[in-house]
């Protein structure tokens, strides 16, 4: 038998079995975590960075009372997911701190999404529209070059290394000359600023022409459009003169793809009452149009959706059934070999299954208003979010931060209209959220709660936002628990959403 060389210590590839059989007497320390009932027998537990476990209630209580033996099947899960610390988990704190820093790093970057309402005019008259539009002959509702210039000064005051400028409306292409001005001016400013600069036009595509497409190609501009489903449903939801919205949208998508490339156009849908029984038709339409996925979106309680009472047309339970049916169908497609993603689930799964924070504004705490996304209205008013602008169109200017012609960057960003809702709605210090195991996946959403209850926090036991969000969180976890194949598919979605 050879003796080891001096300075050389023989190591085995694996620890001995004994190393894993921790004696009870060593004990363990609890690491911070939350728990919430999951079903009649089980609780879901989440740690500080959103890693989760589902355990039965007696195990949770035994664990919290420091009586869980190391040979309990749950012990290693609790240890590997940073719910406990024992004498041989010395890297546990380092790993947890690294994951916490990764989760929170987006906040330090500050505002990355800057939305410009270049025109409030629109050729559509969608009853669920979240913006009170004006008819398309009123030039008074277009943004001026002076307002755009002042807004761009504020955009580049954000410290974010990534700046995305999104053109919104109304229908932004009705003021295409201003889009050209903003893109060219922003790129000129960026020659010195050296940010990662991106542009998106949110358009119904009804009026896109060759000049616009060529400009988008030259400047690498992404297109985001609306597609609510097959022709009859889309045209019912999105009326316009000639009742040809669907035809124009599909033609527009094809033209964008042939000029800019297949992945330069994305589509969003909104769920109306008429959509409820038709989730498969809607998904089939997205598959037929060769999209890689779909974002199943509920209606929002703002603008015309309130005036026309379309928002009240269905209850959150009905929407959840629509969403779950859609998710089941999408999973069927994936099992059959067709890779197709539900993007809202993918955002949540990224929070559940990765150390990264995807930064979706509605699912952030502190809220993403102002500090994640900000909106410059056609008249120079600055709002904390697109939804805040929609409320203002209804007469509620709670989220008006200032005006680009009258206020400085400091006055706008440090205004009470921004700081108060962010501070008050911070989920870690809100009743019920502070104890909720789903908090790492959820968001503060002060604009929604203000719109529906009159305060930034809302009443969580009756909050529709809570009901929908927790319904989805539970469903996603249950699907992963009951089917390994689903877990594999969801992990892929999560990694794509980061």
């Amino acid at each position: 038998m050879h003796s080891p060389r001096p300075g050389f210590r023989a190591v085995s590839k694996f620890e001995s079995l004994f190393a894993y059989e921790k004696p009870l007497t060593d004990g363990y320390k609890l690491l911070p975590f939350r728990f919430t009932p999951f079903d009649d027998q089980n609780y879901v537990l989440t740690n500080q960075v959103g890693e989760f476990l589902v355990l039965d209630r007696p195990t949770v209580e035994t664990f919290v009372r420091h009586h869980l033996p190391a040979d309990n099947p749950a012990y290693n899960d609790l240890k590997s997911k940073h719910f406990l610390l024992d004498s041989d988990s010395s890297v546990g704190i380092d790993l947890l701190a690294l994951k916490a820093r990764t989760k929170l790093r987006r906040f330090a970057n500050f505002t990355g999404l800057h939305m410009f309402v270049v025109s409030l005019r629109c050729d559509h008259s969608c009853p669920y529209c979240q913006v009170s539009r004006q008819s398309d002959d009123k030039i008074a509702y277009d943004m001026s070059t002076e307002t755009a210039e002042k807004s761009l000064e504020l955009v580049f005051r954000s410290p974010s290394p990534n700046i995305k400028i999104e053109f919104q409306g109304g229908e932004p292409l009705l003021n295409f000359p201003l889009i050209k001005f903003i893109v060219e001016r922003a790129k000129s400013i960026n020659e010195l600023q050296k940010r990662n600069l991106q542009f998106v036009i949110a358009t119904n595509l009804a009026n896109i022409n060759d000049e616009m497409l060529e400009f988008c190609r030259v400047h690498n501009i992404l297109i985001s459009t609306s597609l609510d489903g097959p022709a009859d449903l889309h045209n019912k939801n999105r009326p316009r003169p000639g009742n040809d919205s669907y035809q124009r949208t599909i033609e527009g998508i094809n033209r964008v793809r042939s000029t800019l490339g297949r992945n330069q156009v994305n589509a969003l849908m909104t769920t109306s009452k008429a959509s409820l029984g038709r989730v498969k038709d809607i998904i089939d339409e997205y598959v037929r149009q060769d999209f890689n996925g779909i974002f199943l979106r509920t209606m929002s309680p703002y603008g015309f959706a309130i005036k026309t009472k379309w928002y009240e047309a269905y209850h959150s339970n009905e929407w959840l059934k629509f969403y779950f049916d859609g998710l089941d169908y999408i999973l069927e497609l994936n099992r059959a070999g067709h890779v197709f993603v539900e993007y809202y689930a993918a955002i949540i799964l990224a929070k559940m299954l990765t150390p990264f924070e995807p930064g979706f504004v509605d699912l952030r705490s502190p809220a993403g208003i102002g500090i994640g996304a900000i909106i410059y209205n056609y008249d120079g008013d600055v709002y904390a979010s697109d939804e805040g602008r929609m409320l203002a169109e209804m007469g509620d200017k709670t989220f008006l931060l200032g005006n680009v012609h009258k206020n400085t960057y400091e006055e706008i960003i440090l205004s009470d209209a921004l700081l108060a809702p962010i501070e008050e709605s911070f989920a870690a210090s809100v009743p019920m959220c502070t104890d909720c195991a789903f908090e790492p996946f959820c968001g503060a959403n002060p604009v929604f709660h203000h719109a529906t209850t009159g305060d930034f926090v809302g009443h969580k036991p009756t909050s529709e936002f809570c009901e929908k969000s927790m319904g989805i969180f539970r469903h996603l976890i249950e699907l992963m628990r009951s089917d390994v194949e689903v877990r594999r598919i969801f992990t892929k979605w999560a990694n794509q959403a980061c």
Partner: protein
Amino acid sequence: MSHSLTFSKQAYSLEAIKRAAYRFSDRLSVEIIPHDEVTECVCSFLNVCSDDEAQRTLASFRTEVLDHDLRLTIAKETEPMRNAILAYAFSKTGLQGSE
């Protein structure tokens, strides 16, 4: 109709009971009355329900109080660790003050 539940002051904190009462405020209006040895909760149902439903809700409320008691135990025990992890997480970012 109201129902009275009592919780030993030795076993359950007022904080745990208040949190449970808030959580159940979509179903129950809870009046919390501290006595010498116990805390009494007078629970009134917001909507009409059967006796069975009422008993199930009250049993769930008791479990919820126990859950909050455990949560408070976790929060108290892990507070230094929680602060340490966040301090450590940001220790190299240069974002902390110099104090």
